[in-house]
């Protein structure tokens, strides 16, 4: 019972792990590019939460984890902007954002 009411590192790691697993599952099974983008965002959220939890519980004097998490958030923003542009271009040329219509490079 004490384990459930004393929130520690493991609880945050478990939440981050579940988030990462859900994002991974969504990345595999989705066929819509927009849905894949959301899944990647969820995966990155899990990673950010993991880094932040480790920085709070394991880093005493430095804030490396917080700054790394901040960098990850900024990089994800860049990634989403670029991916949105790519998805718009795919829609412009193909007329849909289904990934089954975007397999010309493998032929």
């Amino acid at each position: 019972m004490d384990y459930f009411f004393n929130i520690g590192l493991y609880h945050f790691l478990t939440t981050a792990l579940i988030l990462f697993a859900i994002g991974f599952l969504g990345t595999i099974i989705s066929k819509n590019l927009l849905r894949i983008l959301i899944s990647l965002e969820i995966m990155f959220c899990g990673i950010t939460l993991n880094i932040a939890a480790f920085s709070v519980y394991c880093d005493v004097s430095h804030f490396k984890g917080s700054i790394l998490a901040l960098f990850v958030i900024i990089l994800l923003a860049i990634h989403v902007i670029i991916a949105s542009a790519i998805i718009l271009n795919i829609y412009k040329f193909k007329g849909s954002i289904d990934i089954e219509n975007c397999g010309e490079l493998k032929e």
Partner: protein
Amino acid sequence: MGGSEAILFYIISLFVIAGSFFAIFSVKNIHALISAFIAFLNIGFLFFILELPFLGVVQIIIFSVCLLSILVVLLLLTRQNLEIKQKNNYIKFFISLITTALFTFLITIFIKIGVLLSDGIIISRVIPSSKDIAVEMFINYGIPFSFIGLYFLSAMLGLSVLMFDIKNGKGDYR
């Protein structure tokens, strides 16, 4: 953390997990975006529980507001009919589920090994303020911060190039 904070943590975690789950498995794309909004907002609250208010505010502003606004605009521009075609995906779904379960199990084992190895490292919590993070970022992490800024600038330039209409030879920013 006390009992009330623990209950708050469980409620927020439940919202995070349920939101991310429905963001993947809901039928309509707009429902997926709303679920993702709820999940990202509650991840920001988790940062507040971790006593990292700066990261929480950044998470809420960037993820919940900016990125989801971009995704809503993307949804409207691509004129999705808001439905996903389900085409006998059950076998693929179960294979993916088993793969993810194995993956999760392996990561759990790695975390367990890492926690066992670093058993003496977890000491105590020091809460960094926003000023401390800013000072640390601009003094000790100035060069990576500059590189991130350059990367962001080049991403913006790349976005302009991607949006340029090559066929007509004029800028079509839609």
